[in-house]
């Protein structure tokens, strides 16, 4: 049974069984059968942004081992400060040049993508889970739960991220885990605030009252009625926050509070090129460019995603 059968009112519809075709609900609704079918509308997809994300971040991160020939951590000192291939003095065995330890820039960029991807996905996942749970609880139960969570949210929003990071790093030393913890701590609050707000309004909807009358407990209501309606906003938020996380990680790594050397985080690479900026500009330039492109791509995709998901879900009469 496909939707097409109920959509058209052709022939003799049975009593009350044909879908109402009243303007303007019907055309929009008939298309919203399955979420993935919406993907078929490819007109305004941000192709460039998505390509950037795929080619600059995803593919390098996943296939790093397969596509690189050099060692990202150890270089050949004799080849240090080689310029990129198209400049005089460069060679195609080091397409984007080498840094001051003779490590291949391209290889390090590719491994850096892996780090950026790992850090951002894990951080956002943790932040999203914590933020959503707290936001749902605060929005649904109100009262003291809400007051406590709201206070927590406000507190975490006002924490000076960089200072906090420096303190923590000074205490337990820089590492991959440290930076994930630090970034998660700063990223859960926006999610919680958003989810709390949406839960507050969804809570009053009649379908929640209906579920309560049916006897559903808060757990079931939050999981099956509230969360699915909040999910779209979360997806958009997550996409937009990726850019924030990458920049934060890069900034922290830049000041030495992030990924420890010699690991090739893009932020670390920018920092490394600082003192050579006039004579070996490529050491800072390419990682900086990578950061810029990826963050921009995520922001544009997030904006598009928000528009794509949002008005269609306004199931108005």
């Amino acid at each position, binding site marked *: 049974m496909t939707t097409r059968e109920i959509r*058209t*009112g052709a022939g003799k*519809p049975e*009593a009350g069984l044909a879908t*109402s*075709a009243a*303007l303007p609900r019907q*055309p929009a609704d*008939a298309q919203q059968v399955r979420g993935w079918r919406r993907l078929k509308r490819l007109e305004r997809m941000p192709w460039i942004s998505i390509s950037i994300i795929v080619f600059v971040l995803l593919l390098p991160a996943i296939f790093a081992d397969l596509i690189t020939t050099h060692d990202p951590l150890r270089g050949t000192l004799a080849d240090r400060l080689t310029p990129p291939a198209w400049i005089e003095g460069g060679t195609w065995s080091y397409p984007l040049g080498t840094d001051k330890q003779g490590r291949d820039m391209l290889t390090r960029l590719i491994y850096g993508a892996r780090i950026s991807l790992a850090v951002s996905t894990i951080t956002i996942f943790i932040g999203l889970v914590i933020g959503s749970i707290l936001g749902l609880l605060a929005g649904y139960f109100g009262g003291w739960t809400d007051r406590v969570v709201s206070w927590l949210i406000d507190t975490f929003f006002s924490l000076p991220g960089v200072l906090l990071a420096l303190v923590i790093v000074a205490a337990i030393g820089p590492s991959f885990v440290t930076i994930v913890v630090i970034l998660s701590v700063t990223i859960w609050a926006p999610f919680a605030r958003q989810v709390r707000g949406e839960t507050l309004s969804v809570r009053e909807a009649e379908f929640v009252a209906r579920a309560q009358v049916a006897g559903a407990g808060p757990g079931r209501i939050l999981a099956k009625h509230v969360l699915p309606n909040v999910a779209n906003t979360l997806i958009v938020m997550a996409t937009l926050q990726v850019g924030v996380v990458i920049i934060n990680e890069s900034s922290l790594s830049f000041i030495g509070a992030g990924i420890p050397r010699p690991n090739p985080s893009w932020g670390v690479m920018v920092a490394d090129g600082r003192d050579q900026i006039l004579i070996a500009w490529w050491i800072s330039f390419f990682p900086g460019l990578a950061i810029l492109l990826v963050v921009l791509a995520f922001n544009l995709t997030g904006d598009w995603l928000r528009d794509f998901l949002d008005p269609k879900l306004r199931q108005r009469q």
Partner: protein
Amino acid sequence: MSEAAAAKGPAKVRINRPEPVLKVSDLKTYLYTRWGVTKAVDGVSFEVCPGETLGIVGESGSGKSMLALSLVRLTPEPASRIESGQVILNGRDLLALSDKKMREVRGTEISMILQDPQQSLNPVFRIGNQLAEAIRVHDTDATRAEVYGRSISALESVHVPAPERRLRNYPHEISGGMKQRVVGAMALAFQPQVLIADEPTTALDVTIQAQYLRLLEELQERTGVSIVLITHDFGVVAEACDRVAVMYAGRIVEQGPVEEIFDNPRHPYTKALLDSRPRVDVVPERLPSIEGQPPALNDLPAGCRFEPRCRYAEDRCRAAYPDVVGFYDNHLAACWKAGEDLWPAR
């Protein structure tokens, strides 16, 4: 219904009516969406005489709200477009005016009240501010004192008690009925000749509804304004209208004097609609209802649009859209069987 096709069939006498103040001819407003062309208003014609109230009855999906917006040229753009037709107000075609000229006309010669008073009033401004703005749009030279004076008298004309206090209120501080009166005052501030009221009583309580309709009637007696009253409720029509037009799937299927339509409906949809109203005085065994749903306005059949739901339908109903048949006293119906006595007369 096109003028040319009127007065066929068993029409006896065509009562002469005075020169209409508003004459709509073959108005078409279409919406363009990615799912196709939606013919919200698909060839609508009617006339309104001075001091008269015409009710336009339709359910959701009939196109009546788009019709109302088309009359004042406030249809959403660029999604919709008034395709063709004429809206002649005092001899001038509103559809042919420039945007600038239309802005001058809107509010002064023809005015509109929307259904939901919540939407018409801006929640962050006081009533006084909004009234003043409505006045100043068309009377840019008025002094503050003049505007204040006119605001007070506007509120008085709609029987809002303690108008000085009301001017200082915010919309959420006054009741629904009061809001509707304020909106009415704003619409009538410049004494337009035609007032379009889109479901003005739908959001009001029963007892307030009656008061409000009475108010409209009083204002009409005083100023001679003609009212086009859009509604889904035949009770409103019975209470307040002189003539009524029934709209279905973008077209008017029947129109005529109000008593005539109630006593002697000629279109099966009108009859079914009248019959499906529950009554307070008598309880029938079973409530007659209309099976099925109205057609999608972007997927209209070639023949009569009510045919799939009509118990009197025949093959010719599916083949071609019915011609308009005329009856006594400017009573028109678009049905192939309008002339037959399909049900016992009242």
